[in-house]
């Protein structure tokens, strides 16, 4: 198995094994070390049926999970490099836990597909600070952005 497919399998496995990611219907694509997350539109994501507009909670959860997946991916790439380019068969990625997140809602989310990417602004030993952006038709027209701190799981020494 190539490095790339092992890494992609990891992300696929994670996204299909976490119920809440399935509930939201999220999809993740990897290009090099960058994750692009997708939240395909479905009526269950609506918060305001009269506009209609996506629920801020759905958009917020999407941003948060995108940040987590980017951190998990970065960790897996580091672990692969440390393990000579391979991940152990029983590799279970440790999930970073949000400490605090601030969401800015910039535009009403339309009832269409939404995309998000995360930028890890600093990754320390214990804490990672991450900015996440979500958009729909135009990358430059963000519907929401978030920044937050995540607690990275400590490996047993």
């Amino acid at each position: 198995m190539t490095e790339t497919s092992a890494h992609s399998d990891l992300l696929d496995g994670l996204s299909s094994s976490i119920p809440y990611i399935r509930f939201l219907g999220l999809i993740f694509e990897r290009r090099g070390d960058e994750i692009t997350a997708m939240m395909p539109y479905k009526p269950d994501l609506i918060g305001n049926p009269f506009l209609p507009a996506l629920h801020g909670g759905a958009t917020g959860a999407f941003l948060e999970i995108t940040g987590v997946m980017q951190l998990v991916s970065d960790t897996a790439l580091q672990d692969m490099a440390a393990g000579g380019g391979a991940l152990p068969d029983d590799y279970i990625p440790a999930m970073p836990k949000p400490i605090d997140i601030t969401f800015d809602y910039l535009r009403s989310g339309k009832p269409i597909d939404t995309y998000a990417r995360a930028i890890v602004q600093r990754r320390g030993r214990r804490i990672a600070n991450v900015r996440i952006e979500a958009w729909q038709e135009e990358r430059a027209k963000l519907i929401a952005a978030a920044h937050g701190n995540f607690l990275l799981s400590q490996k047993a020494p």
Partner: protein
Amino acid sequence: MSDLEASLTGGTASPDGEGVALTGLPHSNAMGMRLISTENGEAVLMLPYSAELIGDGATGVLGGGAITALLDTCCGTAVFSSKEPGVVSTATLDLRIDYMRPATPGKNVYAHAECYRMTRSVAFVRALAWTEARDKPVATASASFIINRKAEDGA
């Protein structure tokens, strides 16, 4: 049932379980959220524990995003429940969440939000989420909402 509760719940109180389903808010309803009570500028919601909303399979803890969605909904409901005249709609401007401890697996999550200041255009809200005890919060939230008023109010 108040007009607010009727608009959020589609006018049908659900006799099953605690509170009423939020059928007026599709995403909240899909998550299973229930409206427990509203008062002037305050709201209490409950998110029943659900296997669908687990964010960490190893522990069974609900996803942080589910708590975010609960707190966002609770804050918005608190804004709507204020007795200010002419408020027709509201939307989240920003929302900060502090996650204090994991929600206990298997337990329902409660949230209480209070709109403590409302100007013509903006409402300021704080909220708390907990499972077993209010003094052991799962998360707190601080949010501001944009207020859309009826046109005749000169907004």
